[in-house]
Structures are given as C-alpha cells and as structure tokens.
C-alpha cells in the first residue's frame, strides 16, 4: 500500500495547481456531474485534494510560499463556490425550485441541511477600512484635539448656499472656476464644503470652531490625477480678534501633527470670493523631499488647503456683524493627503473598488 512510488505521487500531485484546476473543471463541468456529497469529500475530505494542497503549503520553499499560497487560496474559494452552486442545483432538481423557495427562511441563520463546513462565517481575511476613512478620521481627531467640532456636509445643495451666500454674485466669473454639475431639480452636487458656511455662521453662537467633512463634485474629465468626486475637510473659525496669522498657525500646527514632524509650508495668493484675501496653503512635497516629482508637478510644493479670512459679506449674509467678529475658513483636500501619504499614482483607485487596492489598507 505505502509503496514509495505511490507516496511520491501523492505528495507531488497537489503542487501542480494547473492539474488540480483541470481536474476541477472536469469534475464540475461534465454534463452529469458527480454528486455534491462525493465531490465535497473528494476535495475537502480528510484526504481531499484541497485539504492536501493546503497542507502542503508548509513544505514549500519560503520563496514560493506567499505566491503559491495565494494561488491556492483563490483555487480553494473557487472550488467552494462551485460546490455551493452544485448543492443548490441538486436540491432544486430533487425538490423543485418552488420547494426551495418555500423552505427558504429569511429569518433563519442558515438554510436547512447546511453542513457545518458550509455554515455562514466571516471571510477569513482581515477586513479593511478605505484610506479615505482612515486618513479622514486621523485628520478629524487632530482637529478635535484642537477644539473643533465636526459635522458633515450635504450632497445636494442649492445655489444660495453653494454660491450666493458665499459672495458670488449671480453671473460672477468666479463661478466659472467651479465646474458645477446641476440636477433637473435645480440643485447642485456641492462643489465645495463651503456650502455649509452660511448655515454654520448663522446657527452657531461664536466662538465657532467647526470642521465639515464632505464629498464634493466638479465636472472634470477623470485621469490619473483628476477626479470629478473628491473630499474636503472644511474649517470655520469665528471669534473676536481672529487673525490671518492665526489661520497660518492653525494649518501649520495641523500639518505638523498630521505628519508627525515639522512640515515646511508656503502661502500663495489665490482668489475665492468668500475669503479676503484668498490664499493657497502649500506644503513641501513629501514624496520627493522637494527634489521635484510628478506628485508636485516638479514644483516641490503641493497645494493642499485653499483658505483665507472670512469675507465680511459672508458674515453679513449669515447675520453676523463683521465689525464685531472675524474668522477664517479653509477647505482641505484630504484625498490629496491620502494620495501623498501612500504615493498613490492614480487617483482613480480611490473609487475603483479594486480589492487588490483596498485590501492593502487592512
């Protein structure tokens, strides 16, 4: 029985995955497949094909272990999937689909006659949070520690909140800077989280320290560095005697805390009608260490936070007296922080739904 030649054959065959795959295609693909029970035994029994293959992983040279292990896992899941389908087909054939529907019980934890091995369980890999969640949460925690309260923005908003209340008169050319989507209901998928500023300045009694997380939309053709859907973390700070130097200090402290070291920054003039002056807060390119790379477009600086002191008209529109209060606001692009942190070369990965991307963030 235990002749050496046979042993050799047994221990060798599981390594040849393409043979296993061929066998599987044959077993499950025939016009009259074997029964569910016999195939389950054949693959997952004590001496089942997959059982043996799995056991053999340990004896692989370590160089091959990871790669082959992964291949084996894919194969295992495929066999399980085929088994489940076979099981279902079998019970259908035996009892008719009406019966299967009748005994289907959505209130039960599993289906009748489910063998233990097939009982529902969690996926046996680590789950993952999307990097936009983890990075967003990290940023939010830092701002919370600095005394900011966090809220979220709407998805669809009206022209008043997106533009008019923010000192964009109707027909203002600055509106062209925002490649705005419109709905048939006359609403705007928000172009920036500043759409919440009017509500917040109006409803929160100063001092206001608020951050707003939001999903924003601009009509832009997507490519490796452009997305029509992006994420902002808006900040609104209103109190008596708040200065531009405070704005710079706040953002700079945030960046230092976020990256865990002193991050070089620079301010560039920009223009947004709802702040005066309009600024762009840039940080050193952490990908290339300011040597120049595609992430910073060879400029050594990365634009991350459009910001500025809140325009008096925005205060007045929200019913706050601009001679009494001052403040600042910013709109941090936190998908930018994700891209930079992980050096993701293609921004489309963020919404690509590719598990090979997502699972890396487990």
């Amino acid at each position: 029985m235990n002749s050496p030649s046979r042993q050799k054959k047994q221990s060798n065959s599981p390594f040849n995955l393409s043979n296993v795959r061929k066998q599987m295609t044959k077993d499950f693909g025939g016009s009259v497949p074997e029964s569910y029970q016999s195939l389950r035994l054949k693959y997952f029994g004590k001496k089942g094909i997959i059982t043996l293959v799995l056991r053999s992983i340990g004896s692989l040279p370590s160089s091959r272990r990871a790669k082959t292990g992964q291949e084996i896992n894919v194969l295992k899941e495929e066999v399980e999937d085929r088994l489940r389908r076979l099981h279902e087909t079998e019970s259908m054939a035996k009892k008719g689909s009406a019966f299967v529907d009748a005994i289907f019980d959505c209130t039960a934890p599993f289906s009748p006659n489910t063998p233990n091995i097939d009982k529902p369980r969690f996926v046996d890999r680590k789950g993952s949070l999307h990097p936009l969640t983890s990075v967003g949460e990290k940023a939010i925690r830092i701002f919370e520690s600095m005394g900011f309260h966090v809220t979220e923005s709407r998805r669809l908003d009206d022209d008043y909140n997106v533009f008019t209340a923010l000192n964009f008169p109707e027909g203002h050319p600055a509106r062209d800077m925002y490649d705005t989507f419109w709905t048939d209901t006359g609403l705007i998928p928000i172009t920036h989280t500043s759409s919440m500023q009017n509500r917040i300045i109006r409803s929160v009694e100063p001092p206001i320290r608020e951050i707003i997380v939001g999903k924003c939309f601009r009509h832009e053709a997507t490519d490796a560095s452009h997305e029509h859907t992006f994420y902002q973390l808006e900040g609104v700070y209103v109190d008596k005697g708040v200065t531009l130097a405070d704005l710079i200090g706040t953002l700079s402290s945030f960046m230092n805390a976020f990256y865990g070291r002193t991050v070089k920054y620079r301010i560039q003039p920009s223009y947004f009608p709802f702040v005066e002056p309009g600024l762009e807060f840039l940080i050193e390119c952490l990908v290339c260490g300011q040597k120049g790379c595609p992430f910073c477009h060879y400029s050594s600086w990365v634009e991350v936070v459009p910001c500025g002191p809140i325009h008096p008209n925005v205060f007045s529109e929200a019913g706050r007296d601009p001679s009494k209060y001052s403040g600042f606001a910013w709109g941090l692009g936190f998908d930018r922080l994700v891209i930079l942190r992980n050096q993701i070369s293609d921004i489309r990965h963020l919404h690509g739904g590719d598990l090979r991307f997502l699972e890396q963030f487990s």
Partner: protein
Amino acid sequence: MKFSLNWIKEYTKIVMTPDELKDRLSVSLTEVESMENFGERFKDIVVGEVEEVEAHPTVGNLLVLKLDIGTRHVQVVVQRCPMQKGDKVPYLPPGVVVPGEIGSTSGGDRVKRVDVKGVSSDGMVPSGRELGLNYDHTTVYSLDAEAKPGSPFNQELDITDQIFEIKNKALTHRSDLFSIEGIAREIAAIQKTKYRPLAWLEDWKSMIPANIEDRLPIRIENDSEALCKRYTAVVLDSVEVGPSPRWMQIRLAKLGIRPVNNVVDISNYLMLEVGQPNHAFDYDKVVSKDPQFDGTAIIHVRMARGGETITTIEGALKELHDNTVVISDSTNPIGIAGVMGGKDTEISNDTKRVIFQVENLDQYNIRRTSMKLGIFTDAVSRFSRGLDPNRCEPVLYQGMHLLQEIAGARIASKVQDVYKDKRKERSITFSSDGCRARIGEDITDDTMVRILERLGMSSVIDGKHKTITARIPTWRRDISIPEDVDEEVVRLFGYDHIRPTLPVRSISPVPENESRSYRVRVKEILCEGSGNEFYTYSFVGRKLYEHVGLDISAAHAIMNPVSPDLGYMRPLILPSLVDKVPQNLKYRREFAAFEVDMVNPLKTDGSMQKSLPVEPWHVALLHTVSFYHSRKYLDLLMSSLHVRSWDIERAGKIEPGRIPAWVRYAQDMFHPSRFGYILAGAEIIGVIGRFADEACDLAGLPSGASGFEISLSDLESLISLVPDYKDPSKFPAVSHDLCFVTKASVPYNELLKAVWAAEGAKDLLRSVECLDIFTEEQRVEEKKTTLRVCIQSYDRTLEKGEIDTLRSSIEKSVARVVGGHLAMKAGE
C-alpha cells in the same frame, strides 16, 4: 495669461533672475504655471548669406541656394520664392529641431540632410511659419541686411526672452492683470524697482491734432447704456493693409497670437499691452451694406432682436438672443459686442477705410453671452473680468496713432465718444490698526503706504485719526473695503514674513457629534467582520440600475453628467457595490464589500426640509456567497451596535403601508421569495436579500450574491454604543440542546419567539443558539430545528425540578405558538 519679460522691461528694470521672479510672483501675486526660455528653440540656428540662387535642374518650383554660414558654405533646396544674392536668412543645420508654428511647445521635425531630386540639401532655410515667428509660409524668413553670416540667429531678433505663464484662476477679480502694463506694475512693486508708466496712458489727447476734418462722419447711437457704459469710435482712411512690422509680429508670436495683418495686429497688440479689447470694421463694407446709409456711418449699440443672426469672423452662423449686446449699422448687426466681429465687415487685404472702435461692456452680461453662444475669446476673458471705461479713450487714440504710423492711415472723422455715467476715482480710508489686527502682524503705517503707492494707489497717513486714505485708481474695481486693502498690503509685505500664531480658546471640551461617531463605528464593525470598505461614486447610470431590476428615472438627474453612466444621484448604495463585483471575481470569490454614505432618495419618495431634499445616511453590504452570509454581517452589525429589538421579517408578514418607499423600491433588486425586511423596534429600516437571478446574469454576480441596505438615519435612535451591562451571574449555567419538529413553513424567528415567550424564560433563559436545521428528503413538509438553550439564574443555583419546569414550559409554548414538538431524541 502669458507675458514676455523683454516687454516688461519697457516699464521697469528686471533685477531678479527669472527663477527668483517666478518664486516671488508665486508668493506675492499668483502661481507661475510655466516659464520658457523662448530663445532656446532657436539656439542652433545661424545667419546665412545667400551667395547664389539657382533654379532646381529638374523641379520647377524649387530653388537651390548656396549659403555662407560663416564657418563654411552650404547648399540648401527651398521652395521657389523671391530670393537674391546677398539676402540674409536663418539656416538650420541637419539635426536641429524646427521650432514649429506659433503656440507649439514641442517643436516640429528634425532637419535632415536630404537629396531633393538629384540635388543635395544640407539643412533648411525656414519660413516664418516654420519658425513660429509669423504665419507666412510662402517665402523664407529673411533677416536685415546687417546680419552677419554665422552669427546666432536669436541675437538678431528680440527672441531671447523669458515667457511666463501665470495662473488666471487667481486673477478673476483683477482685470488689470490681463495686460503687460498691469503685470509690469506688479513686478516693479515686487522688485521694488521704479515703474515707468506708458506715456500715452497719461496724455493721449496731444497725440492727435485737435482739428480733424470730418470727411467720413460717423454717428453712434447707444441704446444699451446699462450694459455698454462707453463706446468710442473713429474712421480712418488711406489704410494700407499689409504685414505688420517685425518687432510687432514677434511680440505677438511670443505670446501665442498669430500675426494676420497690420490692422488686426495693432488691435491685438493693444489688447495684450493694456488689456483693453478693441475692433476694426471695414468702413466700406459697413456702409455699402447699410440700407439707410446717407453719408454718415451709423453705429448702433443695441440689444439683439429675437431671431437675428450673424456670421462671425470664424464663419459660424450664430443666433442672437435678446440679452446679447450687438454692434449694428442702422439696421443689421455687424458684430457681437465684445465677443467677436462679423464676417461681412471683416478687415481684408483690400480694406482701405476702417471704423476703429473701443467699448466698455458689462462683465456679467458678456459672460452670459459668451457661454450661451459658446464663443470664448481673449476679448471675452478680459471683458468678463470687468474693465475700466476710462481706458477706452486712450486706447482709441493710441490705436489711431499706431494705424497712422504703421498702416499709413489718416484720421477721417471726429472721434466719437458716448460715455454718460463716468466712472470716478474713489478713495478708501481705513484704520491701520484694524489692518494690523486682522493680519496679526506688526506692519508699520509707512510700509503700508509704500506698498500701496507702488501699486499705483497714492496714500496719505492721517496721524491724528490713525487712518490711511488710499486713492483707488479706476482700474482697480476689486478694492472697495478695508479687507481688500489688507490683501494688497500683506501679499507684498510677504506671507512668509508673517509669524504664525494660534488662536486662544477656552479648554472646554468639544461636544461629540454622536451620529457621526456611530457611523464610523458601523464601518469599524463591518471591517472587524472582515468586510472591505468601498468608496463609490454618488453618480450612477440607468444601465446599472436596469441590470439590478430598478428604474432610476425618478432620481435627481444630472443635467451635465461627465458620462451617461454617471447621470443620476444615487438613491441606494447597494447597486454601486454590485457594479464592483465582477472585476474582483478574478481574484476573490468570497468577499463582503460595504459602504456608508449619504444618499439622495427618489424625487417621488424623498421628504423635504427647508426646500431641500432630506438626505439620509445608508449602509450597504454585499456578500458574494449567500443570503445567510450577508445575514451574518447584519447580525454582527446589530449586535455590536446593541440594537435591542431587531428582526428580519418575511414579505408577506408586513402590511405594505408600513414599508418605507425606498425599501419598496430597493426590494426589487432581490429574488422575489428570498428577501426580508429589517425591522428595528417597530420600524422597517432596511432590506436584505439574495439578488434576483436576472440581476446576477446581467450584472455578472455569482449566483449566491446577496446584500443588505439599511437607513442609518432611521436606525440611529435605536442604537447604543454602550452595552446594556449586567454583572455576570455567580450561579452555574446549564445548556440543553432541544430539537423541535415543526412544519417546514414555520419560520425560525417564530420558533425562537415561542421559546422566549415560555413562562419563566425571561428570568432563567440566558441565550438561545441555533445548532442545526434539518429536513429529511422523504418528509420535506417538516423540519427539525436544534436549539441550544442556556439556563441560568442570577440569584440562585437552579434545582433540577426548576430546569425541568422551564424545559416543559418551553415545550408547551412552542406547541401552542407554532404547533411544534420536541423530537424523540435530542442531543444533550
């Protein structure tokens, strides 16, 4: 916006290197997007002197030139054109890249040594178009007679230059910076160098003799004064249309504007120089087509009448709207004001007389007109930023001057100027302490004044009132409040000189946003159960929804979607996850994808709050394997959120009226008999099911694919992030496995309810767990459900009798409620 450093040098000395200047412009004005050493593209071109011109022996339209290029003599074949011995031409040796047309950045082909029908051509003598210095392709580009053979070509012309391109986006409010003149002022202020204003902008009237004979009178009627604040025009005759001088062509070419002829080039040149668009009409074409011409040309500025059309210079027929300002003769439009002139009155090589006009237009109206007509010109981008009407007259005069100088024109009419509501210079008085307080940096009054003066705003300090009064020129309409002055001061003071501070606040704790924390917790829970969090677009397409059996028509539709697949705001998350399954099946058969997001209910279903649709938060999870796998995640979620009373209920058990509209909509994704409603408390908060077979086929899902979607907004009031804690009991627990036989149709949850409803169960029953559900093939009408019950008291050790009593009361309850009984033998 592009500018040439050489041109700037006419206004101020450049003391910074191009790199320094780029850096300082970025931090004091706006980002420099690119900087090009323009002369680089000509660096390998040398001057050649034509020594011999011969016809090509076999090809009639070619010439063979022998050139002296200083170091040696070469032979080049060119297209036939007027050439003679002694001409100076640019010569491109083999291997050099042809600079390429105006606006090209990468250059053209590389010059090769070739044989042209038996004659070798050792290099190239290019045309102006090939050099990108004009648009002429009929002759070779010739140089002045003084050019020395062999000397570098880029030293012969004004082409050794730096061309900067700055970001327009940040200059939306600064129409004055859409000109060389304006940028030069900024550069002078940044460098702190002296700024020399254009002489004609200070005094233009003296350029033109006062007594002009009104040979070709012109009259202006302005019916649109609200939108056209000023209109100036003049007629010139004896115009000789021809190429403009080389210096002008080169200036235009460097900034990407194609030279056309002297009249058009002068118009463009003025626009580049001072940012004021202007236009020349062919006088004869205007008057000959005017049905009511009586010797005086009529220019009528008015709103277009419905149905009027015009063919633009570009040859496009445009329908005009009644809010479009047009320039018209007595009857018909001849141009769209500020946007583009008409084809019928265009300047051509035969033009002899012109109407030269400069106007001021309403920035908002012109933007709307441009968007509506789909015409975006350099003139529109300037007008739509709001120009200074006071600039019209000087520009008209300078235009007259250049037309006389360059195109041999003579002034033939009185200057007409319709300008009622004159824009006056304003001044602004601000507290310098206020400015310092807002900026948070100690900037002295003197520094402020110096900065403002450099920017053309003469300023005075009033020491008594601690204020500064600045005169705001009419071309700086963007400055109207003290905060606007802050910007001028601080950007030239230098943001890098501001010492960052932190606002002072009380250390009171920040209240937690609990609903957000709980949504984050939802993500963590599903991730702990090995789910993978996805982020997908809020935009969805009709096809995807059709694949899962839903009609998207009632969702908020995007009027201008990026693609048809992204045409609606999603009312659900689950279909978006469906969309991501097939691509992943290649490497994963089994996974749980989830997402948490705000959704937009269908227009027909959503409720409104303050005239905006309410946007609930949803969570959706998709599992590729089976209904019960999805359910396992639902169990995990509900138990981890400590939702006390929740259940899954079958379709038939719920009155349709209780089902929220969105759930009724969503349930059509699922197999009609394999889904259930998710209840929390008395409310239906979601739906769980296996996808319908057609959905699996169409969307490429594995057959077991299933999922759930829940309204987190509805669930919120029922969750608790703090468990209902109870001290563990000190007394022993007993487990019993009970196997109940019921009809196959009895749902599991009713059996479970029956167990819990047993007398004494509330007190002594700690947990019930399902071990197995079994149906014999021969007796499919009944099923056996094995439950493991855990019995324990909090205050005593239970006697055997008490346990037996509970068991039998459970048995009775099950018999009464669902008609089941204990199987003969139950594993204990």
